[in-house]
């Protein structure tokens, strides 16, 4: 994933915090946030995941003039899953029977993001390894390391994601 410009915005932080069920007013109330140690609104710990919104090639978003979305419409699936569908932060994406899942995620916070920050993200592949899974056949893990930097080039968050592709859907037993 490469994101040239990830503008950190207050309303996006508010919606993201709501979606994870976090009502802490530091994520939406400017006046309250001034009274806290950070001294203003900050983003919740997993917010960089939302940089996917600013990745023009994000494979897990229907494209406005794209090549067909693989979710259901009139038929259960609109298209075959593509091999290149990847979720943000390095989690493997993709639908389909033996699709990709997000296995691990780690964040290192160099500082906490605030509204007004404009970040850029660059990713590089990390390790890959294989394992025989009990519930889903052969598992292929792949790591990616994403660095989020501010306009001064300072590192803000390092995100290490591990995606896994399974041979078949995970047994629910």
């Amino acid at each position, binding site marked *: 994933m490469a994101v040239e410009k990830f503008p950190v915005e207050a309303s996006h932080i508010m919606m993201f915090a709501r*979606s994870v069920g976090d009502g802490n007013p530091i994520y939406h109330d400017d006046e309250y946030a001034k009274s806290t140690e950070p001294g203003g609104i900050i983003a919740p710990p997993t917010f960089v995941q939302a940089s996917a919104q600013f990745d023009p090639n994000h494979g897990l978003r229907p494209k406005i003039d794209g090549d067909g979305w693989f979710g259901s419409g009139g038929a*259960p*699936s609109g298209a075959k899953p593509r091999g290149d569908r990847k*979720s943000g932060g390095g989690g493997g994406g993709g*639908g389909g029977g033996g699709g990709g899942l997000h296995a691990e995620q*780690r964040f290192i*916070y160099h500082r906490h993001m605030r509204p007004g920050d404009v970040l850029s993200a660059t990713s590089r592949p990390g390790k890959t390894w294989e394992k025989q899974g009990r519930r889903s056949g052969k598992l292929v893990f792949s790591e990616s390391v994403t660095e989020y930097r501010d306009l001064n080039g300072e590192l803000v968050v390092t995100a290490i994601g591990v995606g896994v592709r399974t041979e078949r859907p*995970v047994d*629910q037993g």
Partner: protein
Amino acid sequence: MALKASKLSVGDTHAERLVEDLKRTQIVMYAGASGDYNPVHTDEVFTTQVAGYPSVFAHGMLTMGMTGKMLTNYVGDGRLTEYGVRFTNQVFPGDTLDATATVTEVADGIVALDVSTVNQNGVEVLRGTAKARVD
């Protein structure tokens, strides 16, 4: 309020209920906010008929985000320095999740925590570690 190193001991725990009876709508909210629109999280028809799962399931990152709320409530706003998890089981609509942080080390102004989130059957759905600055 930030934690004080002098008042922390290895083995101390902090636990919170993250969600009771997880609703599909919350998963939709997370899809919309995060931008991860993978239909396995929101599209029951696709997920059951094409992907082969019993129902849509939560993004791992939704569980990590909800567990992060427990952590920031415990260590204070803006105090986390590291947070990493492994997704050990899927989370489905209807699940009730409880998360616990356990102190493993306090040194040099940093508390190290083990993090675990379990569902209503006691099955661990997420486990990981975190570090935070303490006073």
